[in-house]
């Protein structure tokens, strides 16, 4: 079981390697949750992935993406979503300089009320056709409208 987890995390690391800002998938703390979600998505999904990919490398994962696009899409979705909810990754996002809550509530974000002096449109653009001024338009140039007539 641990061997399977280790190999899946090597696969996840090919998708999400670490760099100076973000941890690698295997260093994010996501392993147990990722395995649980793979198993929940499809019984034997992890084994099928590993059997298809073999040793995870950029080349073998690219081959998976081409040969089994639906399976790859499922893998990518599960890996990406699981990764970005990890505490280590949320901390990395915050380090980019942007406020980011690990859950939307209860905190929400700082208020920034609508300021009419700044935010209200100054233009007078825009028009509508009042009910009594709706007139037939000339359709002569629109030959595609024959469909459905």
């Amino acid at each position: 079981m641990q061997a399977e987890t280790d190999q899946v995390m090597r696969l996840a690391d090919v998708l999400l390697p670490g760099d100076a800002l973000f941890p690698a998938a295997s260093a994010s703390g996501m392993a147990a949750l990722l395995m649980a979600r793979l198993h929940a998505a499809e019984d034997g999904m992890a084994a099928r992935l590993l059997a298809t990919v073999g040793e995870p490398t950029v080349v073998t994962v690219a081959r998976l993406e081409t040969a089994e696009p639906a399976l790859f899409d499922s893998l990518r979705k599960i890996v990406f979503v699981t990764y970005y909810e990890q505490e280590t990754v949320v901390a990395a996002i915050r380090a980019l300089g942007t406020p980011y809550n690990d859950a939307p509530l209860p905190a929400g974000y700082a208020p920034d009320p609508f300021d009419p002096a700044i935010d209200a449109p100054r233009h007078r653009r825009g028009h509508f056709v009042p009910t009594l001024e709706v007139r037939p338009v000339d359709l002569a140039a629109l030959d595609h409208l024959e469909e459905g007539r």
Partner: protein
Amino acid sequence: MSRPDHADILVIGAGPSGAIVSLVAAEAGRRVVCLDQGGWTAPAEHPHYDRDFQWQRQGRWHAEPAVRRAEADYPVEGNQSHALMWNGIGGSTNVYGALWPRYRPSDFRKGTEHGLAPDWPITYEELAPFYEESDRLVGISGLAGDPAMPPRAPFPCAPLPMRDSGRTIAAGFERLGWHWWPMPAAIVSEEYQGRPACNGCGNCGSGCPRGSMAKFSLTLWPRALASGVRLLAGARVERIETDTTGRAIGAVYIDWATGARTLQTADVVVLAANGVGSPRLLLLSESARFPNGLANGNDVVGRYLMHHTLVGASIWVDRPIASHVGNTGAVISSEFAETDVSRGYVNGFNFNVARGGAAASVALGSFANQPAPWGAGHHAWFARRFGHGFGAFAIGDDLPQATNRITLSQTERDSSGLAAAKLHYVPHANDRRMMHFAIERLKDLAGAVGAFDIAVNTYCEPDGTYRTPAWHLLGTCRMGSDPAASVTDKWHRTWEVPNLYVVDGSSVVTGGVVNPTSTVCALALRAGRHIAALR
């Protein structure tokens, strides 16, 4: 089969229109029973308080029943549009964006304008007072004075924050010389009737457990229940029953917890089950007297399905704009809302420009559904885009076509064994022309905001199939002046069954260029007043 107390009015569906009809009828002193196949969704059940909130949106909080697979849902067969809805108390207000613009006067006069859709049997002016009252009832934030719309009363609440994201988008429209306006929304910007002001949590797509957004199970339904409405959750209607004279006598529902069947009788039946559910139920209610389905002698039930044309784009700018913060709807533009045949098509579209995008959503491709690269380039791609992007969508007025329709599935059934709905939708050539034009305008907008990247979403599959998220399920039991070409009269009363009404998105004749819930609610308020006064 049990028979509970007779009701004056039976409402089927506890979404926005069913809630409003139930409320106004009960407040008028009528005995109202409302049935909904789904249940209550408690605030604590929403994913907002959980670290895995984005994961939950991929599953049990997904807006598409086919993905969510809740027991209260029913399948919608078809390989074209993705029908989105929430089956439960409050309906799709459990998972919507709460954008609240109105239809425009010309939307009601497309028959006069070009003849590819009928005129509505009512005008904008007849509906306008109900828009105003509905806005107060629901709690709408916005800014009056939009030159692109008829004059209106001040909004109940001040506009929602524009924030850096909204200001950036507005500046782009200014550079283009195009119309823009702060988006009206059913989200309160200040305390309103006991509801707290929005705190900008950025997760509108999973509803709002605080009640800042008008989640009708938290906002309208408590008032309706206090007025005496008897609301039954988990009550899946199997069919509407009629008597020998052809009048509706009530509906048989299945308690899907027990399987027990009950006939709820009523003087008047109001169907409010959305643009898929309402025609489905009419078709399920066929009988010897109504062999083509109830109220369907003219074979119009289920036809003329519209759900708006939709093309969109994710647009990214260099400057950080914290676009993951705040309510979804930022700015609306009505620059291209009216017909101008010099553009090569009839009808028009609006731009809805939206914030949004928690981290995983950005990585999965945000609004354009084009995921971040995997591998060595992933983190740099993410760091440059997270909090730097927004979504721009062109919501277009699709032509109603008889061939676009809801029918009964011959192969799929819900958990009670009832035939599922089947959806067929192919855009008209006019719709495609409009979408092509809109895509070019999205690129103009990207240029005007100084975007470093844009990812366009045409919602077209490689084989050409147009497959779009279809929130706005419209037109399938349309009202009209001609009994041969419509399902109901202008009061939503079916032509064939004199005490049966259809009041929801299926009632509209044309789709307009905006999110329809404000119009659906105004129509429901108008119909509810009328129905409540029936004796």
